[in-house]
């Protein structure tokens, strides 16, 4: 729709017309602010926790485990230099006692959500997949943090909007 609008503006004499065709969906998926009647708290981005342990593929599991447990966490996301999510080390993986790298122990390609996703949709997905959290990435895959099931439930209860 926006390309047609851009051409229409040109046809009526505007000379500096730019078409942001990725639009609101792209804007919101990067966690950038939106205005309007919709409560911003209904989006994942308003509740994501950014302070989450990450590691690289090549780190030893032992080193990762110590770091993760040192901050009281039980999950670590494996990212590359661009902070693209490559895998997840959950409780079971971190409990392994063999001498392996994060690459060997991780579950590759965890499903991710965007900050613009409805919080209730994220909660439904976590319930369905029996997950305690979901990694949140921008639409180009960069890790932003996690949305925790407990946080989503509390927020939706406060808004009286918990999905059945």
């Amino acid at each position, binding site marked *: *729709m*926006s*390309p*047609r*609008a*851009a*051409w*229409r*503006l*040109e046809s*009526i*004499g*505007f*000379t*500096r*017309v*730019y*078409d*942001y*065709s*990725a*639009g*609101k*969906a*792209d*804007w*919101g998926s*990067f966690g*950038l*602010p*939106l*205005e*309007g*009647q*919709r409560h911003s708290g209904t989006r994942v981005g308003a509740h994501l926790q950014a302070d989450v342990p990450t590691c690289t593929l090549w780190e030893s599991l032992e080193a990762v485990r110590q770091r993760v447990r040192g901050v009281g966490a039980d999950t670590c996301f494996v990212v590359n230099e661009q902070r693209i999510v490559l895998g997840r080390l959950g409780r079971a993986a971190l409990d392994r006692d063999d001498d392996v790298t994060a690459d060997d122990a991780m579950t590759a390609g965890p499903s991710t959500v965007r900050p613009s996703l409805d919080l209730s949709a994220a909660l439904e997905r976590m319930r369905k997949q029996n997950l305690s959290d979901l990694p949140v990435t921008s639409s180009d895959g960069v890790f932003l943090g996690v949305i925790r099931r407990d946080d989503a439930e509390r927020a939706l209860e406060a808004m009286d909007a918990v999905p059945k």
Partner: protein
Amino acid sequence: MPFPIDRDEVLRLLHDEEAQLVEVLPPDEYEDEHLPGAINIPLKTLDRETTGLLDRERPVIVYCYDSQ
């Protein structure tokens, strides 16, 4: 010819050139949520009259929901 731009260029144009944002979706979608500072001129109503408040010397960025 209109220039296709990405999010970074939108941010630059807003910051450096005081670009004007125009959402061309219907009013209910605009009222639901829109980019900060955007005005709403639905595509079906775009004409000389409805764009009369836009400054022709500054960049105009149009957008909708996504590229689909």
